[in-house]
């Protein structure tokens, strides 16, 4: 089942073309890694797909009315903002805003409890989210997205700034969600992690999709050189490939 379908999507910001003629689909069961250099337009692609910024072309998600869209796709922005010292539980409960019930119905409670349990946040329920460590805040924000109970999750650099253990835990969770039938689109800078966990990679550069396919196909030397201007070494280990930029 296709959860996101972008066709001929173009974005222009301040009279500068950022994205041109993007075609991209995310299906249920996929963890799609969006890779590309800084400024390639990864964040713009996600925001346009959600209909948060103006674009031309089509996005089936942006075409939905906002309430319906918010029950189809959850969005984790790159900046992990928490403006007020709310408790972790209240933070996670924000994920229920798109749903009827005002955050207090049995369905709401069940979704919140499940998200908190899945992210291992039971001990933090009453803690103030702003006083948690960066990694714990990231987990609480992911729990918020899970509580939204959407088939599709769009995450902008979810592992940036996390320690290695948290990075692994986050991508393991995303892969598990994909295996359970969710569709996930996540931008990732660490090519090794992208290669190990993603079912598919999309390489974005020069305002368009340079490559779209299984990780091995996308992480070719020629493409890497063209997109990032670097050479990468691939080292295969029993735990999966390691990609070393040199």
């Amino acid at each position, binding site marked *: 089942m296709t959860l996101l379908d972008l066709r001929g999507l173009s974005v222009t910001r301040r009279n500068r073309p950022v994205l041109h003629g993007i075609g991209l689909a995310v299906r249920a069961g996929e963890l799609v890694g969006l890779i590309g250099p800084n400024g390639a337009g990864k964040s713009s692609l996600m925001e346009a797909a959600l209909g948060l910024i103006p674009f031309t072309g089509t996005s089936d998600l942006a075409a939905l009315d906002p309430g319906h869209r918010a029950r189809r796709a959850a969005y984790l922005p790159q*900046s992990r*903002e928490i*403006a*007020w*010292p709310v408790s972790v539980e209240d933070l996670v409960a924000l994920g229920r*805003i*798109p749903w009827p019930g005002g955050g207090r119905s049995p369905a709401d409670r069940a979704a919140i409890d499940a998200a908190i349990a899945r992210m291992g946040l039971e001990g933090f329920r009453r803690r*103030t989210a702003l006083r948690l460590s960066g990694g714990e805040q990231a987990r609480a*924000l992911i729990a918020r997205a899970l509580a939204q109970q959407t088939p599709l999750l769009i995450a902008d650099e979810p592992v940036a700034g996390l320690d290695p253990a948290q990075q692994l835990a986050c991508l393991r969770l995303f892969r598990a969600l994909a295996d359970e039938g969710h569709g996930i689109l996540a931008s990732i800078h660490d090519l090794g992690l992208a290669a190990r966990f993603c079912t598919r990679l999309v390489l974005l550069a020069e305002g368009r999709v340079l490559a779209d396919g299984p990780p091995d196909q996308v992480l070719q030397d020629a493409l890497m050189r063209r997109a990032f201007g670097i050479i990468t070494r691939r080292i295969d280990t029993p735990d999966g490939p390691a990609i070393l930029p040199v």
Partner: protein
Amino acid sequence: MRALFAGLGLLVAALWLASLLTGPAGIAPAEAIAALVRGGEGPVPIVMTEIRLPRALLGLAVGAGLGLSGAAMQGYLRNPLAEPGLIGVSGMAALGAVIAIQTGLALSAPLALPVAALTGAALGVGLLVALAGPRGGSVTLILAGVAISALAGAGTALVLNLSPNPYAANEIVFWLMGSLADRSMQHLWLALPPMLSGAALIVSAGRGLDALTLGEGAAAAMGVSPAGLRWRLVAGVALIVGPATAVAGAIGFVGLVVPHLLRSRVGARPSALLPAAAMGGAALLLAADIAVRLILPERDLKLGVLTAIVGAPLFLHLIWKTRSGGRV
């Protein structure tokens, strides 16, 4: 939280009653209440129904409105320094009111006064929202606020100084500091309907303000329309602050102090803070209005003087915390 709301409700009721029973005439409480309920002839019923009742009701409405708008603006701008009085929204409302009064517009149609004040407030809050936006930048907010307040204050002083009326120039202090002295029921009826509709708009924006806790993008992705939220906030604040300022002058710091004191008590959720700040604002303003009558009864001490004495140190404390990098 239920205990908090019950406590605030009791406090507001007690202060409202105390406001009714406070005044230079020294009427015994039992006589005062009897005159208020039964009416009748003589000076005591006139004092109670025409002087003290509108004052107590306006204290309640204006205080609640200022607390509510403060909480709403802080929630939307995601900044605890946002306050209608400090950042010039009340000042712009005062400018609108003064222009309506001095041009004689306020005489031609009774609604012209609140409408002009409302327009001024909408310009002020609209300008701020356009400049600072919900990105939580303190520097932009304060700079924009200083500029708007200065402009509004200067405009108000200019209009009053140009007036042919010898008393007008002395009224600058009322418009800058606010007072509830000797207002009548007419003022209440003029201000209350727009204030109530503004409150309804703001309360309806509560969930949107909650969603903004996660940032603009996340809120929009959760189905909260940014344009809709902005419109509700600007209109709601203008509908409250405009008429409130038109009848009571620009009273500062209520919208700053009250949300700050109550935020942690409601778990910092912006939507829960709205009703709490409304009740807290009513309590603070009623208390301040009782105090101005007790401290210097013969001097018509301005309300803003008291609220500033309470609020300014707190404001400095907030700046200090923001300056040292932490969000409040």
